């Protein structure tokens, strides 16, 4: 009941308030405002529906471990520049546990790793970006499970998408409005990183997808989940 009220409040008060503030007080820089507000409001329904559902504590702990692992990935690969397995971990989680787990692992990884790398207004945007990647991959999981090639393509594309989306943030954040030349210049400067990011996601998926699948199966057998 309580949570129903909160979700109604978001729809009937939160969204109009966002639009109103954007058009009156922050009108000069409304795109930045909308970007932050929309990314926050898009994570809230996922969290609410997750809180509502019944979950076994083992499931919660597994999500926690997968989140911590993708944060660890960001920490452990410091020695190897631009190799970051977060997207790969989110993709693998989404494929094995479904869209909800994919979204949660993505969003929580962004939030948690920023406790180590620095929080900021970009946290909400990162959470939405990684969360939605996990969600979309999770929706396609039956197709992706059948074909390893397709999974690798999806992983590489997710890596590129994440990079492109974060460039949108940088571009709009700088100008407070949409300036295509700025976005293109950011794309050009970040192109090498985008490529390495996509390739590294691909490499991680190739190297890790099978072992993780085996490990999950082993745990399922061992503990009878």
């Amino acid at each position, binding site marked *: 009941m309580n949570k129903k009220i909160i979700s109604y409040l978001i729809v009937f008060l939160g969204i109009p308030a966002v639009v109103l503030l954007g058009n009156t007080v922050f009108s000069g820089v409304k795109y930045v405002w909308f970007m932050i507000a929309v990314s926050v409001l898009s994570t809230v329904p996922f969290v609410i529906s997750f809180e509502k559902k019944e979950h076994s504590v083992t499931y919660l702990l597994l999500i926690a471990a997968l989140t911590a692992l993708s944060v660890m990935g960001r920490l*452990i690969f410091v020695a190897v520049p631009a190799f970051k397995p977060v997207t790969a971990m989110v993709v693998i989680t989404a494929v094995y546990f479904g869209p909800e787990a994919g979204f949660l692992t993505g969003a929580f990884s962004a*939030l948690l790793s920023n406790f180590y790398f620095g929080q900021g207004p970009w946290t909400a945007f990162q959470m939405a970006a990684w969360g939605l990647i996990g969600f979309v991959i999770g929706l396609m999981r039956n197709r992706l499970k059948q074909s390893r090639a397709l999974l690798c393509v999806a992983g590489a594309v997710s890596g590129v998408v994440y990079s492109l989306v974060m460039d949108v943030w940088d571009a709009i954040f700088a100008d*407070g409005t949409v300036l295509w030349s700025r976005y293109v210049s950011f794309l050009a400067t970040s192109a090498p990183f985008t490529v390495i990011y996509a390739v590294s996601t691909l490499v991680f998926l190739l190297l890790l997808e099978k072992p993780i699948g085996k490990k999950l199966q082993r745990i399922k057998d061992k503990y009878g989940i």
Partner: protein
Amino acid sequence: MPKEKRFFREGGRRVVKAFAKFHPVTLFAYFAVILLFSMFIRNPVTVCLSLLGGAAFCSTLTNKREKLDDIKFYIPLTVLIAITNPLISHNGKTPLFFLNGNAFTLESIYYGVFIALMIIAVRMWSKSYSRIVTSDKFLYLFGRFAPKTALILSVALRYVPMMKAQAKKIKDAQKTLGLYSKGSYADNVVSTVKVYSALIGWSLENAVETGKNMKARGWGHGKRTSFSSFRFRAADAVVLVLLAVFSAAMLISLRTGRLAFSFYPEPTALPADPVSVFAYVCFALLSFIPFFIESEENIRWNCLRSKT
């Protein structure tokens, strides 16, 4: 006992931050407001004030090396953005020269400097936020609304250092076996992936064990409680009231267009009527609140410190 409550000295400097002792609600409200205003008011005066306040406060949180690193990073960044901005936007009425038929304008350089200052101000405040609103405060704030999310986050926060220790053990074992010791890029990647893979197996098993354990101990039966030692003091009320008053003043002057400023086609005159000046003063006070609090504590600390 949380780390910031332990009083100890580091070369005679105060390690405990006075601002960190405020209630999480006060801290979160303060940082949210100052970050929103720094991002959304595109006025050179307020951005400079925010940058000064943020840098002053951040300098009380960082050591000498971090300060030097910041300066080394942000000054070239400002120059870079100032130079590259005219290449991206060709607005403005004072062309300095033409490049491939596109004007390289003075106003674009001004605007580039402005963007850089805004970005630095936001980063300074974000850095201070990360140091002050630590994960325990964040969980205290939002854990009540989303208990399952809070459980996942707090477990994951504990897992990270545990996994770090385990990763080191795995790595040491591999080194002792003489694996991947060449140190080339490919070697580095493969060995780290191997360590990571072993870590994944270990962590997942650990998580399932913990879950079974929690279930056996009756997790999910009855109401759960949580512990926290945050107190809402009179000082919190003062800061919150100041915050409300100053933000109301800022919002009203924003709404009436008193802080409007534009760089193109040429920089408009800075709004300087009494109402705008009042808004500037309000914003200056607002952005220096944390620095004032730290300075006051510093003075008190130095007066009371034994001079041996």
